[in-house]
C-alpha cells in the first residue's frame, strides 16, 4: 500500500526487497492477477519497446508530416565511426530514444511510458543499461516495474499529462522513471533510486510543453534524447552516493504546483514557446495550408 515514495521505501525495508517487488505485489493485489501473469504482460510491453527503440536505427523513419526523422540513424552511424563526446553507452541510449520517438511520430506502434510523447526515454535507459551490464530480460522487466512505480507516484500526486503540467510532467516523469530503473538494475538501494528520480525531475522543473504545429515531433524527439541522458547522469550521481536535498515526494509536489501555474499557452496548446517562434509559425502555416499530411 503506497501513495508516497517514503511509503515505498519503508515497505522495501520491512520486506527487505526492491521497489519492483513492492510494485509487483501491489499490482497483483489491485488486479487480482498472479505475479507471473503481470510479468508476462510487462514482457509484451518490453518487446514493443525493443522494436520501437531499434527500428528507427535500422531504417530511416520519417514522421507523418515529414518534419523529423532519420536522427536515430545519424547518431548510430556517428557513434560507430567517429569519436563521440559522451562515449558509446550514452550515444547508444540517445539513438534508441530518438528511434522510439521517430517511430511514434510516424504513427508506428509504441508503448506509452508514461505517455507516447515521452515513450523513448525509459526504453532507451533500460535497454542500454541492461546491455551494458549484461542483465537479462527478467531484470529488464523488473526495471520497467520500478519505473512504473515511480510513474504511479507522479500520476497520483501530480500529473503525467503535458496538457495539465507541461513537458516536465511527460519527459520529466519519463526521466525520473528511467533514472530509478537504472539505479535498481545496477544494484542501488531504493533510496538511491528515488534520489536519482528526484534529481532528474529537479533538472527539468518548469519545462513547458510547446510542440511546433501541435505535432509530437519538435522539440519532443530531442527531449527524449536529452531525457535519457538526464536519467543516466542522475543514476550515476545517486549510485555515487549523492542524495537529493529535496526528497522525491516534495519534488513531485513542486512539479505539480509549477505545472498548475503554467499558462495554458505553454501546456500543449502550441500557443507559446517554440511553437510560436518565427520558424515554428512558418512550419505550422505550411502544414495548415496543404490538406495533405506530408509537406517536408
Amino acid at each position, binding site marked *: *500500500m*503506497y*501513495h508516497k515514495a517514503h511509503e515505498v521505501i519503508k515497505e522495501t525495508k520491512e520486506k527487505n526487497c526492491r521497489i519492483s517487488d513492492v*510494485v509487483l505485489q*501491489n*499490482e497483483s*493485489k*489491485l*488486479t487480482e492477477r498472479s505475479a507471473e501473469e*503481470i510479468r508476462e504482460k510487462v514482457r509484451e*510491453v518490453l518487446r*514493443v519497446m525493443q522494436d520501437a527503440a531499434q527500428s528507427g536505427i535500422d531504417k530511416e523513419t520519417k*514522421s*507523418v*508530416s515529414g518534419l523529423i526523422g532519420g536522427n536515430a540513424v545519424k547518431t548510430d552511424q556517428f557513434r560507430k565511426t567517429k569519436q563521440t563526446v559522451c562515449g558509446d553507452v550514452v550515444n547508444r541510449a540517445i539513438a534508441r530514444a530518438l528511434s522510439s520517438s521517430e517511430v*511514434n*511520430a510516424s*504513427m*508506428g*506502434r*509504441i*508503448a*506509452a*511510458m*508514461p*505517455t*507516447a*510523447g515521452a*515513450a523513448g526515454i525509459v526504453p532507451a535507459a533500460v535497454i542500454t543499461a541492461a546491455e551494458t551490464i549484461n542483465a537479462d530480460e527478467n531484470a529488464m522487466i523488473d526495471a*520497467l*516495474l520500478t*519505473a*512504473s*512505480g515511480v*510513474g*504511479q*507516484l507522479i*500520476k*497520483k500526486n501530480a*500529473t*503525467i*499529462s*503535458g*496538457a*495539465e503540467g507541461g513537458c516536465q510532467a511527460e519527459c520529466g516523469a519519463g526521466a525520473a*522513471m528511467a533514472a530509478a530503473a537504472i539505479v535498481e538494475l545496477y544494484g542501488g538501494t531504493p533510496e538511491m533510486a528515488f534520489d536519482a528520480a528526484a534529481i532528474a525531475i529537479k533538472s527539468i522543473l518548469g519545462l513547458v510543453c510547446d*510542440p511546433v*504545429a*501541435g*505535432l*509530437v*515531433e519538435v522539440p519532443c524527439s530531442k527531449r527524449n534524447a536529452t531525457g535519457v541522458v538526464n536519467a543516466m547522469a542522475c543514476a550515476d550521481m545517486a549510485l555515487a552516493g549523492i542524495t537529493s536535498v529535496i526528497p522525491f515526494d516534495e519534488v513531485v509536489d513542486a512539479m505539480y504546483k509549477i505545472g498548475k501555474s503554467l499558462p*495554458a499557452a505553454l*501546456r*500543449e*496548446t*502550441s*500557443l507559446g514557446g517554440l511553437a510560436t517562434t518565427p520558424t515554428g509559425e512558418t512550419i505550422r502555416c505550411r*502544414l*495548415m495550408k496543404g490538406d495533405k499530411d506530408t509537406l517536408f
Partner: protein
Amino acid sequence: MSNISVFEIMGPIMIGPSSSHTAGAEKLGKAASSIWGRSFDAVEFYLHGSFAKTYKGHGTDKALVAGILGMSADDERLRDSMNIAESRGIKTDFIEVDLGDVHPNTVKIVIKDKDQLMLTLVGSSIGGGNIIITEVDGSELEISGQYPVIIATHKDTRGMVSKITGVIAEHQLNIATLEVSRESRGETATTVIEIDSAAPDSIINEILQIENVISVRVLNAIE
C-alpha cells in the same frame, strides 16, 4: 493502496503519436459507438481546448474516427481511418468549440443516423491514454470506461433504484458502484451503475420495461 495500475503508466501499446491525442481519443470514439451499439451514418466531433488547437497534427481526428469504427489503439490501420469511414458511408465532421470549464482534452461526440440525433457523449482524455466520460445524452456522470456501466434515466419516483438493481441482480451481475443524480426533485433522475462483468444486450429492454424508465444505455468495458 496505490489504485493506479502499472499498465496505466506502462502502455498502452498503441499507434503514435500521442497517448492523450491518439490512444485516449480512440477510446472516447469507441465508447460512443459502443454505447450506441448500432449502425449510423454521421458523426460530429466538437473539439475543445488542446484537442481543438492540435487535433490535426496529433492525428486526434484519425484516432477518434478509428475509435468510432471500433478499431483498437494498436491497430496499424488507424492512420487510414478517415478513408475507411468514408468507404463505409459514414460522414465525419470536426468542429472547434469552447465547452467551458472542462479538461483541456475534451470532445463532445454526436452520433446521427438519417439526420436523427442518436447519442451524445462528452469525455476527456486525461493522459497516458486514459479517459473519463463526463456526460451521456446530457446527463452528467463520471465513468472511466474500465468497468461496464449501465446508465438509466427515469422519473424521480420512489423505488426506481431498487427496481433497476433488481433486474441487474437477476442477471447475477455484481454492482461495483451506484450513483443517482437528479435535476430537481420529482423530475428526471439518472442512475449510473458500474458492474463487475459485462451486461447482456437484453438487459436494456428489461430495464426499459420498468415503469417510469425513460432511457437505458450500456457501456461495456473498453480496452
